């Protein structure tokens, strides 16, 4: 007999467990609701654009029904890739942000805190401004390949540096900040060397735009999410335990260093791929997890998928706004997420402080 007792709670405990079960079902419903909202966002995003299409026309085109050839082309080659990319990129950045906020124990962490976007921008600048890149990469994707290689490489470098500095989340954050400044300085150097024309191209890239999306990019981004999400979910209890302190988590038998390393690897893979395809889109990776946390708490079984879905919803609606804000012009979606997301985010936080 052990003092921690039997496995079965008393009547009152059983009643509380039943209440908790109801709460879990409510959370599952909330995640389902977020999923439905993401689908709605996707549809509305596809309906928005210069050629006003109705839901019926889009449905006909999607189902190879009775649609005009022009509508077929618009839907399949323009609207669908952009709308799907918005969903995928939003989900990827927000999921990456949720993982980083947990492993760094810092609510201000986002996929870009540790230099991922700075490194990606530098890689893209090398390709756009100086024409430097992998010789075997096809011309159309050289910028993306460069951005990805530098973003992912910077995370591997970060891991090596942080390990030498003693591991731990402080070492990671400090080395990450050092990388941000290093890549920004290198980027400034490349910009200094570039022509005005190349600089303009680069500035457009760095603002983040979904217009570059095609079906191949959507498939690649979707595949990265499909590969990383199951590992995230498998680690969800360990991530939840990590929220209670790394020493405590280690005393529960978790190899905390390994958990941090693999989680950072997933987050950087997601963020690097997103940056490579659509450029720098700030803020979704920060705001998505925050909204999810307020809605659903930090049981990571629900928190991680809710973060991904919240990011998808935010990004879809940002894409809609970017098309509607100025008639005839599609704003870079990165501008929209920052300009509209920031006040919304502040309002949410201030309201939470008051209650």
């Amino acid at each position, binding site marked *: 007999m*052990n*003092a921690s007792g039997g*496995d*079965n709670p008393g009547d009152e405990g059983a009643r509380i467990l039943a209440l908790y079960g109801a709460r879990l079902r409510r959370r599952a419903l909330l995640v389902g609701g977020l999923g439905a909202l993401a689908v709605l966002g996707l549809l509305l995003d596809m309906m928005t654009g210069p050629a006003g299409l109705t839901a019926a026309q889009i449905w006909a085109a999607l189902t190879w029904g009775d649609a005009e050839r022009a509508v077929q082309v618009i839907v399949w080659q323009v609207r669908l890739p952009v709308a799907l990319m918005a969903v995928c990129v939003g989900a990827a950045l927000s999921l990456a942000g949720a993982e980083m906020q947990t492993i760094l124990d810092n609510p201000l962490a986002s996929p870009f805190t540790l230099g991922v976007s700075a490194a990606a921008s530098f890689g893209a600048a090398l390709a756009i401004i100086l024409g430097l890149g992998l010789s075997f990469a096809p011309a159309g994707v050289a910028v993306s390949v460069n951005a990805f290689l530098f973003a992912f490489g910077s995370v591997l470098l970060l891991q090596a540096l942080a390990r030498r500095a003693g591991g731990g989340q402080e070492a990671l954050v400090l080395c990450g900040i050092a990388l941000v400044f290093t890549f920004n300085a290198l980027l400034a150097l490349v910009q200094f060397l570039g022509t005005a024309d190349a600089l303009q191209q680069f500035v457009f890239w760095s603002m983040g735009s979904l217009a570059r999306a095609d079906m191949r990019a959507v498939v690649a981004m979707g595949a990265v999410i499909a590969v990383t999400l199951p590992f995230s979910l498998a680690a969800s209890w360990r991530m939840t*335990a990590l929220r*209670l302190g790394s020493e405590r988590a280690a*005393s*529960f038998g*978790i190899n905390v260093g390994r958990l941090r390393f693999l989680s950072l690897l997933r987050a950087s893979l997601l963020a690097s791929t997103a940056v490579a395809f659509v450029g720098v889109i700030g803020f979704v990776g920060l705001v998505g997890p925050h909204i999810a946390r307020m809605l659903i708490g930090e049981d990571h079984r629900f928190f991680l998928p809710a973060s991904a879905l919240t990011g998808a919803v935010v990004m879809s609606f940002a894409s809609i706004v970017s098309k509607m804000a100025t008639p005839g012009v599609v704003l870079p979606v990165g501008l929209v997420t920052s300009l509209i997301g920031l006040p919304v985010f502040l309002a949410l936080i201030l309201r939470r402080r008051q209650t």
Partner: protein
Amino acid sequence: MSADAATFRITDVSIGYPGRPVIDRLSLAPLPLASMTTLVGPNAAGKSTLLRGVAGLLPARGDVRLGNLTLSGATRGAWARRVGFMPQSLPAGARLLALEAVVAALAASPPEDGPPLSQPALRARAMATLERLGVGGLALEPLDALSGGQRQLIALAQAIVRRPAALLLDEPTSALDLRHQEQVMRVARDLAASGVIVVVVLHDLALAARWGNHMVVLNQGKLAAEGPPDEVLTPALLAEVYGVDARVELCSAGRLQIMVDGVIDRAASPSGGMRRPLRPS
């Protein structure tokens, strides 16, 4: 309780941080089954460091073994199945319910050999543990809404829900009022009585003398004394380790009480020390 968990042995152990050894080649008498050991000593004596090293959270050299399982030979998960550790405080800011914090402790890695527990079984066991500590009613409260004493009991539930053979508690009563101190120490002693090897770091010597049946005194990373509290706690030891002029007396209830009369000015006389009263008498 498995037979291999018979004793906890700490032999020739050195623990520290890179370039800063804290515990230097420390050996303790074996800690037997169903014992409650209190670990005391002045600030920076190395109490918490020893506990973390033995829990496997800091690199430790030397021989730490529980039954036939050694710290150096066990994986993180295998050691955590036998040895539980409770850090001083739960961090604030996690948006979790009390019950979830305890379930997370169980679900983080398998608490025992054999097939993993189902989710309902994990929840039932976590709930039963909370009830055992008298905090079942707090199960659905957010962690951040709990008082310091309540949080400490949730933290204790996290440590014992895994049913360790040895349980290491780092100052579990710090920042607790008298009633919660009593509650936490009672749980620890009940655990010891049921067969767990309990080691508790405490600052309060009277509390340590009252609840422990074995006392280890550390000073500057070395063993100063060990044994039954009434033999260990002497005016000479208190003078040597804490640098105070103190009396050790039994109160009317038969418990050890320590009364400090003054501090010993070590600078004035390195050999014996000059006694200086706290108040002019």
